[in-house]
């Protein structure tokens, strides 16, 4: 629809500022994420990683600056944000599954309500997604019966059910017991092969290094450094990144 010169840019962020009251969380972030690119957003806690991610589907409204998704300015008042969000999936640290619906209903709900898929279609696609994340046998179970890792895999399937072009992951493994981290990372790794655009806020440095095309290093609300992972992890330029990596590795 929108013919832009950079038609392969999925997300463009232009001088993004966000404050909560007096607290300045984001202080002028500009970057681009290309279609099919996987970026890992890392940085010390309080650096604004999650806020940055949540701005990309307007769960947080930027104080100033612009964000374009597929060339559409999502901060413009006339933009239908609900439409944009259908195209931008999000996975949360604490899963946020709907507790009063079975696993399959969780996955089927949005396609039926938002995309008006028929029950049968939604069911078929839902089961397909659940088997992709290895949980087909849990379809009729309520979320409270699942382990953390299973919950997060369902949450990923629920987001994918809307067939988004962009997936946002907000510390998807931080709330998990260590033995469950791997199963979630494996699902995400599979996902990188599908050509979907991914932005991942994470503390899993090994994972970031392995799957990301690019590292965005945030510090005190600024984009302190961005580089391909091999370059970033081997030769961090800024002092803050060096300090951070020393603590993490």
């Amino acid at each position, binding site marked *: 629809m929108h013919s832009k010169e950079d038609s392969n840019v999925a997300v463009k962020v232009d001088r993004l500022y966000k404050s909560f009251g007096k607290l300045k969380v984001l202080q002028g972030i500009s970057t681009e994420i290309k279609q099919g690119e996987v970026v890992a957003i890392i940085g010390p806690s309080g650096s604004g990683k999650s806020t940055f991610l949540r701005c990309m*589907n307007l*769960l947080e409204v930027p104080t100033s600056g612009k964000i374009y998704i597929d060339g559409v300015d999502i901060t413009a008042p006339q933009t239908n944000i*609900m*439409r*944009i*969000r*259908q*195209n*931008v*999936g*999000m996975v*949360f640290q*604490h*899963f*946020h*599954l*709907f*507790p*009063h619906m079975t696993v399959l209903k969780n996955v089927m*709900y*949005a396609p039926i*309500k*938002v995309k008006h898929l028929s029950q049968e279609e939604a069911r078929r696609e839902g089961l397909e997604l659940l088997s992709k994340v290895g949980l087909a046998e849990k379809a009729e179970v*309520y*979320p*409270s019966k699942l382990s953390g890792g299973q919950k997060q895999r369902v*949450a990923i399937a*629920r*987001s994918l059910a*809307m067939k988004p072009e962009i997936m*946002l992951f907000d510390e998807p493994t931080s709330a998990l017991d260590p033995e469950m981290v791997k199963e979630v990372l494996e699902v995400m790794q599979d996902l990188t092969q599908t050509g979907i655009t991914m932005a991942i806020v994470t503390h899993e440095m090994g994972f970031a290094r392995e799957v990301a095309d690019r590292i965005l290093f945030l510090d005190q609300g600024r984009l302190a450094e961005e580089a391909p992972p091999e370059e970033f992890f081997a030769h961090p330029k800024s002092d803050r990144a060096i300090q951070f990596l020393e603590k993490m590795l």
Partner: protein
Amino acid sequence: MLKKQLIFTITFLVILLITIFSGRHSSSEVVAQQPAENKSKLVLVTSADYPPYEFRETATGNEIIGFDIDIAKYITKELGYQLEIKDTDFSGLIPALQSRRADFVMAGMTPTEERKKNVDFSDIYYEAKNTIVAKKGSNLIKPEDLTGKRVGVQLGTIQEKEAKKFKGITLVALNKTGELILEIKSNRIDAAILEDTIAKGFVASNPDLEFNTIPNTEAAGSAIAFPKGSPLVADFNRVLQQIKTSGELEKLVNKWFGNNGKTETSSTSTLSFAKIAPSIPYILEGILVTLRFTAISAFFGFIWGTILSLFKISTIKPLLWFATAYTSIFRGTPLLLQIALVYYATPQLTGYDISALAAGVITFTLNSGAYISETIRAGIGAVDKGQWEASLSLGVPYQPMMLDIILPQALKNILPALVNESIALLKDSALVSTIGVADLLRRAQIVGAEKYIYFEPLLFAGAIYYLMVMSLTWGGYALERRLQRSS
């Protein structure tokens, strides 16, 4: 998103109003019309707890009968009208005329100067005397004996006015004559001023009481009351004159007041449920009225409460202000007052004659909506913020998000509170008896008035209320357990 919120709530409101107003026509309550010269039906409003003037024969049916009713039937037949009879509290009779809900009122009513300011009266058709009713051996015979005593009267009656002339007494005005008898028996008042016909009946049923006619008092004559300026007065007076001269009136006096043969004496010490046994089916029918009333009010109150709670969490300031002010008013004034206002003020302000049942349902809906909205608001607040964010990030619009995701979880949290609210509603529904809805309590009172006993029907109704509340409580527990299982 704001617009959708608004559309969502307005749609809900419209549905609510349509349902209430379309529902009331199918209700069994009769609706009076504006008085007009060219109509074939007249509405008589009376207070059917005053035998032998007017009362319900509850053992055989629900019909209102009595001395006044016979006269009303005779006159309307003579004048070529059909007669429709409606029932309300005695204190609601004058308002019924003023709100044009009634074409005329017959309730053993005496034409006093104050009443004449608000309504028109026919000629007097029957004169009764006032009596002092007291415990046997109390020696309260003359008005002078009452000095320093507590004396009961029925609120708004000629006897109340009469008693105000007695010196040095403490006046206690109650709603029903049956209550006065109970108060004497429990020694809360020393005596009551009642009309002789009524007093005869009570004393016959309560051998521990006696009555003495008050000499030299103003005649407590009964007349028919009409709305101010009613063209019916002259016609009614003509027929009254006719039945006085023809001897028809005397026949009716003998039928209803002669040697009070229909009351049998009973023992005083024990409760006599046997006496109300024939009327039990009549009281039991009140369960349906009460349950239906409670269910409808709870349903609409819940929907209205949900809408108000959405207002309260709305980002649109005027909606928030409205809901807050609304709740504050409806929680800050007595429910009984709200019922009376809705029932009596609606016809006077809007000209729309709202039925007692509809007035009750609307008041309870508006009132319980205020309470429920607070509960639901708290319930919504307790739903994890992440549920909103997950819905929003999936592109789910406001309405399905609220209906499918947020409210079901909120309701599960507040289910015990909602069961509580329903129980309160069930019991408070007894307040509609004050505007004449024949619910469980009113039926018990009517039976009490008919049989000249008060305790037994009330105990019986109380037991039924308790059973209904217990069923509701158990139902609530069962529902809670079911919901727990699903997650």
